[in-house]
C-alpha cells in the first residue's frame, strides 16, 4: 500500500492523509493507491500540508506500517524519548519501529 505523509505547515508535526483530511496518527492513514500525486499537489497547494511525499507501507491488523524505518520513526517519535512519542504510556511502542 502507499501512504501520503508530510508535516503540518504551522507546527511541523508529522501528518498522514486519511482520505478526507490529515491525522497525526499513522493508524488513520489510508492507501492512496494511484491517486497519491494528485492529492499531494492539491493539499500542498492549499497549504494544508508541508513537504508531502508518498511512501510504501504494509497493511497490518494494527493499521499501516511504513516500509522504511525512517517513516516508522516519524510515525511514532524519537525512540530514545518514549515520553515524547505519540504513545508515551506504552513502553513497548518503540518495538513497532524496529
Amino acid at each position: 500500500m502507499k501512504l501520503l505523509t508530510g508535516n503540518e505547515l504551522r507546527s511541523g508535526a508529522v501528518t498522514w492523509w486519511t482520505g478526507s483530511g490529515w491525522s497525526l496518527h499513522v493508524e488513520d492513514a489510508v492507501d492512496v493507491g494511484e491517486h497519491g500525486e494528485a492529492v499531494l499537489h492539491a493539499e500542498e497547494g492549499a497549504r494544508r500540508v508541508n513537504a508531502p511525499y508518498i511512501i510504501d507501507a504494509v497493511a497490518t491488523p494494527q493499521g499501516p506500517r511504513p516500509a522504511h524505518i525512517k517513516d516508522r520513526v516519524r510515525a511514532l517519535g524519537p525512540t530514545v524519548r518514549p515520553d515524547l512519542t505519540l504513545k508515551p504510556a506504552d513502553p513497548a511502542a518503540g518495538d513497532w519501529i524496529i
Partner: protein
Amino acid sequence: MYKYDHFDQSIVDARVAEFRDQVNRRIAGEITEDQFKPLRLMNGLYLQLHAYMLRVAIPYGTLDSRQMRMLAHIARKYDRDYGHFTTRQNIQYNWIKLEECADLLEELATVEMHAIQTSGNCIRNISSDQYAGAAADEVADPRPWAELLRQWSTFHPEFSYLPRKFKIAVIASPEDRAAMRLHDIGLELVRQNGELGARVFVGGGMGRTPMIAPEINPFVKADDLLSYIEACLRVYNRYGRRDNIYKARIKILVHEIGADEYRRQVAEEFAHVKTLGIDPPLAELERISAFFAPPAFDAADVEPDRSDPDFAVWLDQNVKPHKQAGYAIVNISLKPIGGIPGDATSAQIDVMADLAEQYGFDELRVTHAQNIVLPHVAKRDLHAVWQALREAELADANLDLISDIIACPGLDYCSLANARSIPVAQKIATRFADMDRQRDLGELKLKISGCINACGHHHAGHIGILGVDRKGVENYQLTFGGSGAEDVSIGKIIGPGFDEDGVVDAVEKATEVYKTLREGDERFIDTYRRVGLEPFKEAIYG
C-alpha cells in the same frame, strides 16, 4: 565577553523583523515552500523528522549566564523543556513551531543571540578552544580573533552563496581541543620571534570525504590575517565546484589542484586583497580584545579537600589546570550513563547558568564534544560546584573516557540520517558504566554518526561508529585510529558492519585487546597505532 554595539544589535533586530514577515507570508500562502526554504535555512530553521528544528549560534562556544538562562527559557517556552548542544558548539531545539519562531528569535535577540548562518552555504559559526583565556599553553587568547572573524563573516556579501558551507576554527595552543585541522580553514595562533601570527591550514573536513587540512602558510602575521583569509575564500568562491554537491567543499578544491597550487593562487589573491585595506586598525583590535580581558582573579591557591572519594574522582577526571594559580577549569559532562549525549533540560541549563554566575565570572563554554565548561572556577569553590552539579545530575566524572561519547541526533531526529546514533551511545555507555573500568581504559574517544555526513565526528574517533542503511536495516561500521587532536588522523574501517548489539560487543572486544597489549601509559589509540589493526580484527571477527 564581547558585547553587541549598535550595529550588531541593529542587524540582528532587523533580521528578526524580516524573518517574521517571511514567516507570515509563508503561512498566508504568499510564498511557496520552495521559495521559503532557503529563507528559513538562513535563519537556522530546518524541517526535521518530527518538527521544525532551530539551530542557535553560540559564537566560538562562549556565552554568559544571562544567555544561558535564555536558552533554558527557550527550551521551556518554545520547545519540550530541553535542548541539544552540538558538535559545532551550538544548541538545537527539536520541536519548534513555525508560527512561534519569530517570537523566539526576538527573545533571543534581547540577549545578543541569533540563528543566523547556522545553515546554508555561508561561513558558519566560528569555533574555538573551549579553554580559551584559561589554558596555560595558549600563546594568546583566540577569542578576539574568533570575534573578529564573526564580525567579518556576518552577512559578508561576497561569501553568502559559497559553493558549499564553510567552517573555520581558531585555536592558540599546541594542544588542539577544537579539531582544528578538520575544518575548512583552521588557524593556530603562534608567535614567531615574539610576533603574533597564525599557521593557516585549509581544506580539512569530515563528511563523506574526510581530509586533514594541509598547512598552506606556516606564519601569517596578525596584521595580514583577515586579508589572507579573505584571499583563501576568494580562491574557493571562484574555483570551488558548484556542479556537484559532493565535490563542492574547499577540501576537494585543495585536493584536486594540490596544496602548492592553491597556496600560489592564495598568495596572488592576497597581494590584491591587501591593497583593499580590510585588515582592522590596531584600535579596533584593541577594542575587541578589551572585551576578553582576564577576570579579576584574586583567589588564594588552596588545594581542595579530597576526602570524599566521588569528589576526588571528579576532580581527577573533569577538572583541568588553569593558567592562573588558585583557579581551575571545570568540565560539566552532558554524558550521563544511558543518557542522550549533549542533551540538557531547561532546569539543568539554569543550574549551569547559576553556577557560572556564582562561581565562574559569569562565563560558560560549549565544547565540540557536547559538554559545558566553566572556564574560571576558584579551587576553593570546586566542592560547592560539584555538589550543585551532583544535585542536578550533572556530575558524571567521565570526561574523555569511553562513555563521554559524541553522537549526532541520528535517525531519532534527523532527516538526513540512515541509522540511529543515540541508542548505540546509550548501550555502550551502559556496558561500560563501571567507573573503575572506564578509568582503567583511560582516554578513549568514541564518536558516532548516523550517516556519512559525519556530524558525530566518527572519522576523528579513536573508535568511530558510522550508521548506515543496509536494505532498510540499520548497520554500523567500526573505524579505528581517528583523532581530532594535535595528533590528527582519520580512522579506518576495520571490516564488515554489525547490528546494534553487535557493534557494542565489538567495541568491548577491542577494549579487551587494548588492555592485553598496552604498554606503559599508552592510550587506546597509541596501542592501535603501534600494533596495527590485525590483533583487533582477529578478536572481533575471529
